[in-house]
């Protein structure tokens, strides 16, 4: 079937087998390998992308769901358009050493951006709860939590400017 959607800001139309996961479509056909697959039970969150602005697990999403939708992946996240800078949340992860091996990172960042967008002034407890669908084996989460709190502040500060 043919689907049309906006991918990281660009209109995209393609033929897909409906039995294709969005994570596979991104990785295998669109060469967007930043979206990772870390499990087969929708637990780990390494594959989180934004579908119409909401974080979803792209390993548990069939390609037809993209039709007419807007999809943003880690590769589509950026700072001020045209600035070639990192998004404030990405920057916060770097500043706070919120990543080690990098495998869970794209999903963590995408989840964090959505979490922060919804709620200014996130508390530690809210961040920890908001990350319950994302597993990291390297960091013990401490610096991820600090990153998300800092990134959220930076996102809202940028909005206020």
């Amino acid at each position: 079937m043919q689907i049309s959607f906006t991918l990281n800001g660009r209109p995209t139309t393609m033929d897909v087998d409906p039995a294709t996961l969005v994570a596979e479509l991104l990785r295998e056909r669109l060469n967007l390998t930043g979206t990772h697959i870390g499990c087969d039970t929708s637990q780990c969150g390494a594959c989180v992308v934004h579908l119409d602005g909401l974080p979803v697990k792209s390993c548990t999403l069939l390609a037809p769901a993209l039709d007419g939708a807007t999809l943003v992946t880690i590769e589509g996240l950026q700072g001020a358009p045209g600035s070639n800078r990192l998004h404030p949340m990405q920057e916060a992860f770097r500043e706070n050493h919120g990543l080690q091996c990098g495998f869970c990172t794209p999903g963590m960042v995408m989840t964090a951006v959505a979490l922060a967008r919804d709620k200014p002034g996130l508390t530690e407890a809210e961040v920890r709860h908001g990350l319950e669908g994302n597993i990291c084996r390297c960091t013990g989460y401490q610096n991820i939590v600090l990153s998300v709190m800092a990134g959220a502040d930076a996102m809202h500060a940028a909005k206020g400017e």
Partner: protein
Amino acid sequence: MKSFAYHQPGGIPEAAKLLSSVAESKLVAGGMTLIPTLKQRLAQPEALIDLSSLADLRGISDDGATITIGAMTPHAQVAASELVRGKIPALAALASMIGDPAVRNRGTIGGSVANNDPAADYPAGTLGLGATIVTNAREIAADAFFLGLFETALEAGEIITGIRFPVPLKAGYAKFKAPASRYALVGVFVAQLPAGVRVAVTGAGAGVFRVPPMEAALSNNFDASAIAAIKIDADGLTSDIHAEADYRAHLVTVMAKRAVGAALG
């Protein structure tokens, strides 16, 4: 995952027709259970009938004494709904405890109720509130709907369109999460309704069930102390690597008390 034919019906009648006419077909709502099953090749349907395009099935309406939630309404929407939070806050709280944020953006109430996973949350809320399951063919009382492990009263070709929840006087949900899966190891929904108190338990057995002794005790005195001494028989409860049956039985009482506490807020 194996290939399948994919159908996007334009309306419920078309969906129902496809479901009864296409061999080896399955409905897919949010897909949170079905898609992992397909990925792991544990199910290999010939066709999927995707309900996501049916906008009528999405949304929450206020009918005064009841709230109706469309079958395709995602958990996040229920959790955030001002209407649900105002009238049945326990139901909004239950929705906010399902899975994780990403799962709540896709998973739907209709899908959860139709699947009737023995550790899912919505069956507890549905049975606990004595809700009515509305399908394209009829209305089914929750008491007659959940028939045990992944079994419901739904017949071939029958599609849930929404769930109608009575607005309780008070209600509470307490969930002891299985730490890995985040499903309910034991979840108890308690509702005080004009007709009496209902207590529904998920996670503990092969399917959601009510606890009449607790209901009687709470109808008399809606306070956690009223049920503190009520013990559940461990016979027939689930024993697995996460929890033994007698522990689950114990948790039912603990969670029921906490649900009452939540209801009394």
